[in-house]
């Protein structure tokens, strides 16, 4: 198992890209997350697993402050990106989201052309100074998202006309185009068929090392396949966090063991 050895090496080497310390989230009166602490590393894919409503997506959305859009949500605790508190008053949310990109559960391309979908991020952040440069960014992003060969002849077609799997890769290309440091994926394969899922998983493996990737998934096999670190959430609590191989073969907690063996969830 290649992933096991890779994870073991990486754990020792890299500095954490993002650190979360004692993060609590409240939706109005209700507490959705009870003190989560996690480190996210660049060379590793981190997977969040757990049953529905366990807070894994909530926590993921804290990492790029997407929870800000929910009026009732309140976050306490500290989340740092390279040592800077992302909830500090001087943190610019727009720049944060450019540095911490996101791919959503349901493929959500803009109802614009494929080219425009990918070019949008670089354009609003002024990342390309010329049309040629923008073209290069679009091509490179689509190549990295392994979509280029399928769409290079129809970049002006609507992004919504692609198949579900292609749409999701387009969304990944759109996230890559801004050249983020971290990519958050919120159940990116839950709306896709097995073949499209396999492609996305392959893609995640290719992207590892260049971007810190955090993936939320319902599918435990997927977590085992793509990630090096796994965090198991249950009822708003981080039950166990460690090397994927460790979690799946030798979990410390009884609840983790019950979940991964299919006893509940």
């Amino acid at each position: 198992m290649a992933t096991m050895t890779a994870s073991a090496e990486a754990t020792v080497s890299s500095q954490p890209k993002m650190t979360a310390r004692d993060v609590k989230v409240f939706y109005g009166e209700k507490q959705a997350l009870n003190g989560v602490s996690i480190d996210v590393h660049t060379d590793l894919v981190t997977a969040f697993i757990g049953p529905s409503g366990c807070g894994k997506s909530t926590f993921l959305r804290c990492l790029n402050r997407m929870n800000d859009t929910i009026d009732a949500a309140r976050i306490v605790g500290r989340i740092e990106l390279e040592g800077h508190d992302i909830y500090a008053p001087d943190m610019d949310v727009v720049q944060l989201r450019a540095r911490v990109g996101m791919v959503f559960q349901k493929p959500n391309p803009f109802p614009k052309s494929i080219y425009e979908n990918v070019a949008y991020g670089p354009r609003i952040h002024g990342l390309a100074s010329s049309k040629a440069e923008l073209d290069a960014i679009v091509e490179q992003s689509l190549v990295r998202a392994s979509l280029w060969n399928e769409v290079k002849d129809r970049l002006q077609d609507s992004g919504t006309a692609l198949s579900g799997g292609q749409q999701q890769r387009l969304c990944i290309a759109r996230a890559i185009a801004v050249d983020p440091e971290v990519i958050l994926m919120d159940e990116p394969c839950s709306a896709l068929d097995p073949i499209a899922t396999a492609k996305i998983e392959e893609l995640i493996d290719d992207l590892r090392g260049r971007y810190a990737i955090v993936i939320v998934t319902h599918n435990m096999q997927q977590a085992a396949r793509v990630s090096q670190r796994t965090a198991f959430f249950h009822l708003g609590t981080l039950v166990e966090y460690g090397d994927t191989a460790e979690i799946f073969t030798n979990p410390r907690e009884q609840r983790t063991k019950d979940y991964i063996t299919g006893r509940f969830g």
Partner: protein
Amino acid sequence: MNSPRVQTDWASPVMQARVRSRYAKERRFRFMGFAALALAGAFLLFLLGTIFANGYTGFLRTEVKLAVEYDPFTLGIDSSALAGPGGENALNTANFQGVMTAAANARAQTLGIAAKDLVSDGAWLALREAVRTDPGLIGKRVDVWVPTSGDFDLLGKGLIDRAVPEANRPVSDTEVAAFDTLKSDGAVRTTLNTTFLTMADSTSPELAGIWGAAKGSLLTLIVTLLLCFPIGVMTAIYLEEYAPKNRFTDMIEVSINNLAAVPSIIFGLLGLAVFLNFFGMPRSAPIVGGLTLALMTLPVIVIAGRIAIKSVPPSIRDAALGVGASQIQVVFHHVLPLALPGILTGTIIGMARALGETAPLLMIGMRAFVTDVPGGLTTPATVLPVQIFLWSDEVARGFVEKTSAAIIVLLVFLMLMNGLAIYLRNKFEKRW
């Protein structure tokens, strides 16, 4: 312990009866739906049929051929006076009425009727237009087609029942005989009524035009649109995308919904109190009409805008926020383009309602009798629905067809606006 259930016998008479009654119920419902539709269609057809049958003659007019002598002495000008820069002025001061009266008197005498029963009061205008286009006519004697009097116009269109006793109809037997003589001479014809389409209101039906009211409506609606659209859309965006959800915004939402249901005459009173009495704006002016209608249309646009913005899938907002778009970029790059078809449809429905609105405009003086086509936003004007209301109130028989014709013009306006709404919606929806 339960006894085991008996196997259902789907073929039993009870079951068969159930099936039959179910089908019967379905047939009855379908029939009632169809009947309702047919009834509505019949009413619509009847309405449109009556209006068109009564109204199409409003677009036509009867003209009589007269031999007119453009006598320079009577006119008080000659062709040389028309050539210079003062030509327009000379034309306007020239006594075309005199020339017309002379020609009409001559013809009327041969027929044994009065000149005012033969030609329209405004017939001399036709002479002036003729000279404007060809100054060489002065000093010549030519045959000219001029509009007939209102009564002859009705005779020409066959709208007067000759079987009615003389005392009970507007035209005497002599006049009917005179008309028949003219007709047999080929000196009467029916043509397109350009006056109706280019002039404003008048006391004589054959001279009354709809263009004054149509332009008044147009100017009023432009003011309304310019105010309503930006303010309404901005309000909708703010309420949907920016405003915090608390008791205060809930109250605003309720208030806006209530405003949309306020009777329009109340808005007229508000316009009267605020724009006329407090700000001292001119009475009967399209700008005041536009402002008043804007007050009325604004809630409609805000509500339509909010619904349209709300219907943009949240995933699009997430996607844009996820690549680091700011709130304003999310709104203007993604939400607004997708909401635009809905906003435009709502706006045009609101504008169509404003176009048909009469009550608030009565309050601010737009029911005035205006004989000039309004030149600007502050000149007195009236609007199409008010014009229809005014004409329907007139005694003269000739205004009946004018009323229907004005309704046709209003309907055409409405259809154009709805057509525009459909066109815009389809055009912008293609981007999805």
